[in-house]
């Protein structure tokens, strides 16, 4: 939070890597900081977009050419640096693009979803018949 904003903490928040105390502090900051909320939304959107990209195969011989050994002169050495940087960037894209979208396990939070439905439906529907059931605890089974 070098700039007074969450910065890298946002990644940890999205990845669920923060401790409960850190997460609470981050969420409290988000509640009052539109800049960080926008950053969080943008980061999440970019991640979703990247994860939905299709796998891409490297051109034939790409890695071999990248890794081939030559004794470089000055110009060759500069070309090598550029190539290495380009290769790193390509590798990063490949890593992100080739990786299959993570199939994270999901457990629907049934009680929360019911509350979300009842409250939203009550705005345009009859408030008594839609919100009264929300006052009843949700429990299933015998």
């Amino acid at each position: 939070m070098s700039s007074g904003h969450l910065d890298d903490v946002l990644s940890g928040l999205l990845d669920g890597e923060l401790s409960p105390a850190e997460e609470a502090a981050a969420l409290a900051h988000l509640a009052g900081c539109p800049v960080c909320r926008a950053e969080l939304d943008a980061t999440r959107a970019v991640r979703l977009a990247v994860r939905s990209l299709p796998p891409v195969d490297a051109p034939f011989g790409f890695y071999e050419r990248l890794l081939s050994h030559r004794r470089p002169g000055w110009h060759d050495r500069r070309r090598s640096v550029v190539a290495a940087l380009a290769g790193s960037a390509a590798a990063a894209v490949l890593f992100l693009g080739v990786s299959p979208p993570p199939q994270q396990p999901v457990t629907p939070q049934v009680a929360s979803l019911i509350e979300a439905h009842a409250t939203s439906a009550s705005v345009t529907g009859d408030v008594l018949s839609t919100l009264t059931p929300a006052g009843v605890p949700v429990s299933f089974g015998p």
Partner: protein
Amino acid sequence: VSARGAGAAVLALVGALAASGPAAAGPVVRPAQAGGTATADPLDDARRAAAETSFVGVMQVRWRDGSRTRVERVTVRAERGSLVFTGATQVVAAPTSERLVQHGRSWDLLWPAGLGPDPRPDAGAKYRIASREGAMVAGLPSTVYDISRHDRLRERLHLHTGTSLLLSREQFDDRGESVRYVGFEVVTLVPDAPVVPPKPTDHERRVPRAVPVAAVDGLVDGYQRLGVYRRSDVVQRLYSDGLYDLSVFEQRGRLRRDDLPDGGEQVDVAGSRGWRYAWPGGNLVIWEARGTVFTAVGDAPLGDILLAARSVPSPPAPDASFWDKLRAACATLVQPVGR
């Protein structure tokens, strides 16, 4: 399970209201509906009446859960559009359309003011609505609205003849048996029952944000989309056919079946295995398709919800074409910009 947290208070209120005798007339008086086929939407009238009428009462919630019938009670207080529902959970509706739910010591804002959704479609386009004079309900005269489809009674509403306040609502299955009921056991219309909406104390984690969508669309059987909202990684699509509401929640990932609640009944949703549960306000169906977990929550009969759920469009499959994925990715990127 009963409204244990507020059980003593509810019982005390029942006693006090029962001792006070029949309810007095309220401040808002509407002309009684004439018998015959109704042209106005009684649920619209009931919603307006709830926002204009001050009252205090106890509502019974009764629903069929498998072979059992379960009953709960919730106290409702209303004044100038603020309504407080007190059962095991406390829910508040503010005049500004805010909806708050109490969890522990905090009040979570589950619906902010000004978020929408779009107006519901006209129930008369799909259902036949007939009205007649009804019996007394909780000491108040009522007008009955029978809402039918294909000559089969689906819902019966009792609205207070004077104010149009909803006194009871009952749903019937294909055999004409009652499957769900919400109605006052006792109610008193009072001019002053001070209700002060609480301030939300929770951070914004559960506050939905609207997701802009280009076109109006819907599901089969007349369900029109009223809005699309996002809470964290959960997307909610809200639909209505004018009488019933249906939310379809989407979460990317793989359904962890071992963590589903007990008591689910297996159902088929367009070739996918799903699980159905009865909740106090209706039915809920959970299923997974193409890497997305869907949860449909609604107050319609199970058959209607399954029919609508089978028409929910599936997301692109993991092996979709490059252009399909690129299109989906671009749409995802554009969404936050439009907020």
